[in-house]
């Protein structure tokens, strides 16, 4: 092939890449190893408010004004420009285009580039506008919230009315009383479902206030004992809550929300247990090494590794709080385990036994734990039981 032929081929390859970049709906920015922008496609203008031609030669970090509600954005750039590995921008981030006021919710990825010799040469950043997705999700939550509110009033009337009728037991024939009792139980469950639906929509929309108090996790014990002792006893289950936690377990958090977390887990542990079973809440201080070990054992290694990465080495040496909620119950079938934190998901074995539930509890639990800067893991064996592990940064 002649020199001219080669040029044409190279030109053709270049043009093809340029057309590909121009026609995809994601914003693509290529930088060199130090973060200087080498190329950008037209979509980047919609996200950054800057013409692609003007982006070239500038530092990527100064051109991208991300705002994230849960993590440090500069981490994303620093890490990506080290060229060690592919990275994702944390969830719930947005970008503000230059000269624009509205923030655009975005997802972003960074993938390192290497030359044929294997040396790191730069990074490809891909930005995706999530506005449509976020709007669709919000519409879904608004609808769910509206329906839940509309249902709450009639269900409340039904429940109070049924309770009044049930109180007149002596005037009812036994069959009538029994039917009313069943109806009352149904409305009670329904009220619980509405409460959880509203909780989950509020959490998802970020409308739940989280207090930032210093709390000792052990102080939650007496509340839980008071609430669950009777239920546990009537189900023939022994329940203990932070019985041998001697050291203070101080964290920054919201006592009410923490109670929501533990209430959900304890209720599950009792309902999905066996007669003469046991439910134990333990709390103690631990360190990141043990957390990693638990994570590896429970298959949450990657997720927890990513989580621990955000702590400085001094923070890692400091204590973390580990809360365990363990039961000796029905356990979760292995095939269902990956899905248990999904909304409305319920494990097959509990559905088969006719145990009522909404499938929302664990999804709420996970959301709250992560809002409080913690993580949740679990291990479970069918017919043996389940243990949930929750970790939080400690301020002890």
């Amino acid at each position, binding site marked *: 092939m002649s020199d001219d032929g080669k040029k044409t081929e190279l030109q053709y390859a270049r043009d093809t890449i340029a057309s590909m970049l121009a026609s995809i709906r994601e914003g693509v920015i290529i930088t060199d190893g130090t973060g200087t922008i080498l190329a950008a496609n037209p979509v980047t203008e919609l996200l950054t408010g800057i013409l692609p031609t003007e982006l070239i030669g500038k530092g990527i970090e100064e051109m991208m004004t991300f705002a994230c509600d849960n993590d440090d954005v500069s981490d994303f750039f620093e890490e990506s420009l080290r060229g060690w590995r592919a990275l994702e921008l944390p969830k719930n981030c947005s970008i503000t285009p230059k000269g624009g006021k509205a923030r655009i919710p975005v997802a972003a990825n960074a993938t390192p580039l290497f030359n044929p010799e294997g040396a790191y040469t730069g990074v490809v950043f891909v930005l995706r506008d999530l506005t449509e997705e976020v709007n669709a999700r919000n519409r879904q939550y608004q609808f769910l919230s509206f329906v839940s*509110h509309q249902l*709450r*009033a009639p*269900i*409340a*009337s*039904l*429940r*109070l*009315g049924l*309770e*009044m009728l049930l*109180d007149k037991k002596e005037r009812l024939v036994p069959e009538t009383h029994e039917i009313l009792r069943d109806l009352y139980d149904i409305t009670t469950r329904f*009220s619980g479902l*509405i*409460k959880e639906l*509203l909780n989950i929509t509020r959490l998802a929309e970020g409308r*739940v*206030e989280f207090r930032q108090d210093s709390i000792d996790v052990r102080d939650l014990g007496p509340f839980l004992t008071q609430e669950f002792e009777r239920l546990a006893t009537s189900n023939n289950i022994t329940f203990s809550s932070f019985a041998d936690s001697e050291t203070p377990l101080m964290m920054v958090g919201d006592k009410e929300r923490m109670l929501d977390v533990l209430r959900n887990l304890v209720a599950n542990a009792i309902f999905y247990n066996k007669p003469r079973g046991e439910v134990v809440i333990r709390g103690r201080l631990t360190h990141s090494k043990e957390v990693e070990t638990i994570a590896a054992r429970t298959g949450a290694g990657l997720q927890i590794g990513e989580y621990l990465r955000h702590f400085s080495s001094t923070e890692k040496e400091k204590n973390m709080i580990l809360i365990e909620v363990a039961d000796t119950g029905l356990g979760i079938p292995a095939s269902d385990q990956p899905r248990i934190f999904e909304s409305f998901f319920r494990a097959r074995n509990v559905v088969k036994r006719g145990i009522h539930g909404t499938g929302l509890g664990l999804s709420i639990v996970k959301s709250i734990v992560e809002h409080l800067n913690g993580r949740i893991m679990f291990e479970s064996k069918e017919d043996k039981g389940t243990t949930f592990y929750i970790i939080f940064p400690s301020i002890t």
Partner: protein
Amino acid sequence: MKKILFIEDDPIILKVFQSRLAEEHLDIIVAIDSDEGLRKAKTEHPDLIVLDIFMGEKSGLDTFAALRAEEKSGARIPVIILSTDDREETRKKAEELGIEDYFVKGLVSLREIVARIQEILA
């Protein structure tokens, strides 16, 4: 006979309480909207008000604030909120205006409400 003013637009809830509280020898006055509620709070001198704050267009909290604004200090009528609104911010606002208790409809039993009413009126 002690008097309780129910500011509530749900006919079933009203019937339930009228029947149940009659057994406790309590007199029930009903107002089915905020304006009527405000008027009756002044003219009927109730010993307790049970207020729903999620009625129709007008916010029950505004009604409540108006009621408190007109009261002489030291002559505050005890108020219990019974509402479908379970938001923390609503509860906080109500607490700032001074309430005896806040119950969420659907999550509270008749027995609990009646017990609390008796306690307040004792």
